């Protein structure tokens, strides 16, 4: 993020503020048990889970805050939360 005078930002430039550093736990997606229901994509408050292929969902760790909603709601228990090592 640039140090603009007055902390100004252009539309969409909220992306400059990477919020992934807030995270304590991060999600691990298991393709074998994934049903491809996409509930995780719909529920993610950050909208940072992207479909990369059949039953392949990838969180953008620059923005994932580690809330764990995806893991909690996943019907196939295909998402687990792991402690972040920093």
């Amino acid at each position, binding site marked *: *993020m640039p140090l603009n005078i*007055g902390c*100004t930002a252009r539309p969409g430039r909220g992306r400059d503020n990477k919020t992934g550093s807030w995270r304590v736990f991060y999600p691990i997606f298991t393709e074998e048990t994934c049903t491809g229901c996409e509930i995780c994509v719909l529920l993610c408050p950050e909208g940072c889970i992207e479909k990369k292929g059949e039953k392949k969902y990838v969180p953008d760790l620059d923005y994932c805050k580690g809330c764990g909603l995806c893991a909690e709601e996943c019907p196939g228990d295909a998402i687990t939360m792991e402690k972040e090592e920093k």
Partner: protein
Amino acid sequence: MKEILEGSHAVAEAVRLCRPQVVSAYPITPQTHIVEALASMVADCKLDAEYICVESEFSALSACIGASTAGSRTYSATTSQGLALMYEVCFNAAGMRLPIVMTIANRAMSAPLSIWNDQQDSISLRDSGWIQLYAEDNQEALDLHLLAYRVCEDHDILLPAFVCFDGFILSHTYEPVDMPTQEEVDAYLPAFNPYQRLDAKDPISFGMYATPDYYMEFRYENQRAMLRAKEAIVRYGTLFKEQFGRDYSGLIEGYELEDAEIALVAMGSICGTVKDAIDEMRKDGIKVGLLKIRCFRPFPDEEIAAALAHVKTVAILDKNVSLGSKGAVGLEIKDALYGSSIAVYDYILGLGGRDIRKKDIRAITKLAEQGSGDMFYGLREELL
């Protein structure tokens, strides 16, 4: 042209000459006469500005923030509880780096309710990132508004400023003032040229959030801008002197200070009383002088240390108290003189409109000579 005006009306005239495009304020004693006068000027087409009536001081300064981000020169005025209600907004204006100028007609803080003068209100906002200038008389109050806009709008500074003048003692007192013409003010203060502004065709947001990875650097930049303002105030104060003949080239001012052994340090209207007391004491052979602080934020620590290097004793007259500690000016002077052998004493006086007379200044000078200080001066012992 010389005129006899009430202090509030002298300030209102000065503000009119600065051509603010948006004025938003909420009435509160003893500031009300300023914004009443400005409202009349707008109604009478003597000032081409939007006058935004609001329901509180919080909204008044918030409206100024909106107008300033939209690219307007903005003005407000308040005091005491009104300024306290703006607390949050003050920090936002400074962080967004908006050159808003606001007059503070200094008044005591409640409780107990007091409409009378001390400087607790603006002193309590010392950490908010606003430049703070203090006027000794109504001429200086008038002039400092021109200087404040000139400094604040410099693209190397971009900070808001309080112009502080003592409530009632100045705001409600008629004094002769030399009122500059519109042409003279226009020559000194160019039209507002915003560094950046809200524009629907090229949208930006002000004051976005900063995570722990960035916040400190924004604060550091604010601090650097504040420190740069010292040089800018001197530069534009010098320019003012060249154009209007009145000298504001210093963040501080000395009176009989060169050969003084005791220095009194003060801010605001009390300086006039102190100068009269010094004249009397000099006749009695007491080597006493005054160091007047015109600019409290940024604090001129190095300038003060240099100006006081030769004195034996310093007595600070504080019209505020940081409860549980000392007077705010006293604390800063002690910091500025740290490591020197000068005896430094702080005196808290004049709170809530308690009169300060020449004999009080003489008594404090004597107390400092005797090595007695860091105390409330002038308490009514029979009440305690």
